[in-house]
């Protein structure tokens, strides 16, 4: 009995933190999404599903509803750009993680430290710097023209590509670190055994290294996908607000649009997409556990 009480006392801080910082805010958002919008901001306490209806339909002056794909486009664009970000982070991050993992241990820690260097500067400032690099009179376009590759500036800024670039730049450490953790635990002897059994480097990568680093790849993909989906700064600054993404859309609802329930409903949509991704991850992790652990 005493032990039971002690156990509960022990996990109280965890319960408090999760309850206070996660469940209560989620509860507020879900509640708000089911209330009526107050035109001056905030909500009127009348239950309605209007906010969710608004995602798919629009209501005209005569109170008739018709299908409206504008918000769906934004939702799918967000998912699409987040997926592209995940894939490119993986393609660019895996070789980096692998390179770090095969270094002598003393050098590894230093390289990992280098990966975290960007975090030392404010994200807003770093994203602004990308504007200087990408704009029509920026570093890239000036160089292209100096070397005579193009005559007129190439439009780089305020494109979906610029958004993806900003997102990759921001979130690639979240891809590199878990993959590195997986690869670092990988037994070098397995790679030797594979080469010994007539597998080339490429086959060894495909048949041994990639499958065994899958937990890291999946974890990294989720860690990149979640924040990329709801990202606000990169889409806003590098997308110029022309290609709206979910993050900007939510922000808009709470500021100038003054439709808090709709903003909350969109946040709930992000939450649902994230939960789906996590469920996929959980299923994958379970499968991996039943198949074998990595030595």
């Amino acid at each position: 009995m005493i032990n039971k009480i002690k156990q509960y006392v022990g996990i109280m801080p965890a319960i408090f933190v999760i309850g206070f910082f996660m469940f209560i805010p989620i509860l507020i958002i879900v509640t708000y999404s089911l209330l009526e919008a107050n035109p001056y901001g905030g909500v009127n306490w009348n239950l309605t599903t209007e906010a969710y209806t608004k995602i798919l339909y629009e209501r005209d002056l005569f109170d008739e509803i018709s299908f409206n794909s504008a918000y769906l486009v934004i939702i799918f664009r967000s998912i699409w750009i987040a997926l592209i970000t995940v894939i490119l982070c993986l393609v660019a991050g895996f070789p980096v993680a692998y390179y770090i993992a095969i270094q002598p241990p003393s050098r590894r820690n230093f390289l990992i430290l280098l990966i975290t260097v960007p975090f030392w500067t404010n994200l807003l400032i770093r994203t602004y710097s990308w504007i200087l690099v990408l704009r029509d009179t920026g570093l890239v376009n000036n160089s292209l023209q100096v070397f005579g590759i193009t005559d007129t500036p190439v439009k780089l800024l305020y494109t979906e590509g610029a958004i993806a670039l900003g997102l990759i730049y921001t979130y690639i450490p979240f891809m590199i670190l878990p993959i590195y953790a997986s690869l670092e635990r990988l037994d070098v002897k397995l790679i030797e055994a594979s080469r010994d059994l007539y597998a080339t480097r490429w086959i060894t990568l495909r048949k041994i290294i990639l499958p065994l680093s899958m937990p890291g790849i999946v974890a990294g993909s989720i860690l990149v996908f979640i924040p990329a989906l709801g990202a606000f700064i990169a889409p806003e600054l590098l997308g110029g607000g022309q290609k709206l993404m979910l993050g900007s859309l939510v922000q808009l609802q709470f500021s100038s649009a003054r439709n808090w329930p709709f903003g909350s409903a969109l946040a709930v949509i992000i939450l649902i997409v994230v939960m789906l991704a996590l469920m996929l991850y959980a299923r994958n992790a379970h499968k991996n556990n039943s198949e074998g652990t990595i030595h």
Partner: protein
Amino acid sequence: MAVAVSVRNVKKTYHGSPSIDALKNISFDIHHNEFFTLLGPSGCGKTTLLRLIAGFEDLTAGKLHLFEQNISHLPPEKRPVNTVFQHYALFPHMTIIENVAFGLRRLGKTENEANTAAEKMLELVHLDDFATRMPKQLSGGQQQRVALARALAPQPKVLLLDEPLSALDLKLRQNMRLELKRLQRETGITFVFVTHDQEEALAMSDRIAVMSAGKVQQIAKPDEIYETPANRFVADFIGDANFYDASIVKSENDVTTYQIGNGVHLKGPLRPNMPDNAKVTLFVRPEKISIINFSTLELVSGEIKDIVYLGSSTDYQIELNSSLSIVVRNENQQNGLAIAKPGDKVSLRIDPTSIRILESENS
């Protein structure tokens, strides 16, 4: 006899601070169809040599030939040799049959062909019922046999074994020795076996290369290594031995008398071309000496100081004089009763032909 592996002037240096010469100019041949063992203490370079043959490390200098093909600079996947790793290194995400078929698949066999051959290999190591299990579901001994099957499946020209038994417990290890010998006989593949366990080496090998400090000290059959070691290192590393610094007293007929301490003389064989008063090292194995209870005119006598019971035999520590002692091993043939007790005065019979004279260590 065909040469399976030819090692010529092989050197391996690990650069760093300080640089380490793991192998210092090694040359020898491993014959076709031979169970060849590289034996030595840790750090002697035996594993480095094995890894060089497998292709996991680059030669610093020298040449490696495999059945007259120069393999010195081929990548591991181009060398027709396979390795059994110390901790098995089975692929944890593949079933047993997938593990065993892995090499065959890479050699271009279809899935069906590879699986059929892999099943045959699993039969050979008595694991045919385990084909669809995952490696972590098997015991250490079973994993070891899977590792063997996986390395043998592609029918390599030479099988390399890197201390494959060291992670197993004693009984299993002894069974696996027999199993390895049987597999080597049945497959006819040349085995190159690395171990630090002298008993293992003596039990299994056709020939043994004893290594120390990056050099080969002696290459010979197990009985030759044990009976006529080339130097003190080999004599000391293989089995137990009594060593004495000695000087020659006199030589007559075929027997030379050596003085090994104050007033203690041993009769041994004559070493040819030895100057008078030359200093030599003598050694004699403990089991070659017999204890005689009654006092005779035997050359050596002493007092029993200590008795160590070893099960099948007993070791007697006998003090010859205040600064000199000798260990005698006696088989426990009767009922295991000790033939003497501490404090007993005994005489020792040492056949002159069982005494060996050693050169100084080859270093």
